[in-house]
């Protein structure tokens, strides 16, 4: 039981941030012990939207379970689906046609930019600046429109199948993506003007929520959170999947370890994603967009693990298969869950305002944590 009311014996206040709170962006419940404005302890209290996706997946076939994973980290749903497809392809040794691979990677990177856009807006809003939120949505909408045209949905696309993609790209796709790149490049400097360079923003972010590299590894952080502490951990570079090993992009590293470093990692990552898209958009190979697969997919007996890099970090799927049409046990290693575990460590000694900034830079998506 967590004590959620009143004050402690030392006279410290216990404050519930969440389940309904503007800064948690979802139904995260943090029980915070406060000494004045200073945080002494942060205890996460989860489960408000736990749907037990792992249990649900035990009764779904390998084609059906993909759509459930879109509902976990809904901001990078396409990348989650990607992991699901990859693990089935790995188990069945399906050769994915090159066209499908390129389309998948393009969509991954577009999803990453869209996710970081939303994070950027929400992050600024957490710190009290409303305007960047709307500016971020201007670019994000363009990506969503591209997604809608090709995948048929804006957020939970369900565009992937084991063996390829559901449908070929829309004829307008290439033109629209190029337009988007042009738009994005003209607007990315505005982000620095509005937020990054702002003295108030910098003083709110610098030296806040510091986590050392060793601690970040011990807490199992991944993605921008770990890269902000200077540890190289990009799955796309270290354990490359699809065509990432043939692409030319940098892994973004910052050594600060504070909120500002994590912020800069994400901002620079958007530019790297644009770089990947620019390399691919004119070079989509012709050919099939789907491999021939059997009507009923049966994963061979054994254990499979696949990890991908979502916008939030390393997303892993662990499947124990008994050879049937459904997984025997499936486990999703979600980046948010591990990143959340570091929050208490980061927040101690900070102020309430810092807690909001930290949650912003951890980029928590609650369904991803609760699964």
């Amino acid at each position, binding site marked *: *039981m*967590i004590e959620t009311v009143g004050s402690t014996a030392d006279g410290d206040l216990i404050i519930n941030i969440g389940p309904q709170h503007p800064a948690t962006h979802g139904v995260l419940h943090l029980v915070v012990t406060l000494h004045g404005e200073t945080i002494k302890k942060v205890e*996460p*209290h*989860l*489960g408000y939207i*736990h749907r*037990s996706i*792992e*249990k649900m997946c035990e009764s779904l076939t390998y084609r059906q379970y993909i759509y459930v994973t879109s509902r976990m980290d809904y901001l990078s749903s396409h990348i989650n689906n990607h992991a699901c497809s990859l693990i089935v392809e790995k188990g069945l040794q399906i050769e994915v046609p090159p066209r499908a691979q390129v389309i998948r990677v393009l969509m991954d990177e577009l999803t990453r930019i869209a996710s970081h856009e939303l994070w950027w807006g929400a992050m600024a809003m957490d710190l009290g600046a409303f305007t960047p939120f709307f500016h971020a949505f201007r670019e994000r909408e363009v990506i969503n429109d591209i997604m809608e045209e090709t995948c048929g949905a804006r957020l939970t696309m369900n565009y992937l199948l084991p063996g390829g993609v559901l449908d070929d790209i829309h004829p307008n796709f290439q033109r629209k993506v190029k337009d988007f790149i042009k738009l994005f490049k003209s607007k990315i400097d505005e982000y620095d003007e509005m937020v990054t360079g702002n003295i108030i923003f910098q003083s709110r972010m610098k030296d806040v929520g510091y986590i050392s590299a*060793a*601690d970040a*590894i*011990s*807490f*199992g*952080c*991944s993605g921008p959170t770990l890269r902000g502490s200077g*540890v*190289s*951990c990009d799955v796309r570079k*270290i354990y490359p999947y699809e065509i990432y090993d043939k692409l030319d992009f940098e892994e973004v590293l910052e050594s600060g370890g504070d909120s500002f470093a994590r912020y800069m990692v994400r901002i620079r990552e958007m530019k790297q994603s644009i770089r990947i898209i620019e390399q691919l958009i004119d070079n989509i190979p012709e050919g099939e967009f789907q491999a021939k697969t059997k009507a009923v997919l049966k994963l061979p007996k*054994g*254990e*499979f*693990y696949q*990890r991908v890099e979502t916008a939030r970090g*390393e997303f*892993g799927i*662990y499947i*124990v298969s008994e050879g049937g049409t459904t997984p*025997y*046990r499936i*486990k999703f*290693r979600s980046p948010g*869950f*591990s990143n*959340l*575990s*570091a929050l208490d*460590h980061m927040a101690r000694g900070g102020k309430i305002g810092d807690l909001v900034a930290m949650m912003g830079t951890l980029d928590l998506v609650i369904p991803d944590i*609760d699964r």
Partner: protein
Amino acid sequence: MDQEALKIAITALLPSASVEEGTEWLTINIEPTEWLSLAQQLRNDEFLLFDYLFCVTCVDWKTHVSMVYHLSSTTFRHNMVVKAKLDKAKPEIESVSKIWRTAELHEREQYEMFGVQFLNHPDLRLLILPDGWEGKNPMLKDFDDPINMIKL
């Protein structure tokens, strides 16, 4: 370190561990009692340095329960899997939250979903389930919830 070298290093550390064949990553089966000391060695050995615990899974095999730990090293980039077979009636294993601090939350999740007792865990409470949850652990295979289950 590649898989063969890892295998030799691990068997040198713990001769009683049995290595599973035909897996993507080196997979070893151990007794739950050996886990804590092995974990310490895996974490601190200068040639292994498994400092990144990225996945803690519990699998209900109906006859027994097994814990699966996915480990990786951020320095050497090698991965391995450690499995421990637990007793179904009284599943117990040492907590590794002192070695990898991420384990604290992961173990709490497995504790409430599978009922695995993590010994010497600093704070073994319900995390996701509502306070005062009684009855079976929901992720077990024989769990049935006639009230909240939506039947189609």
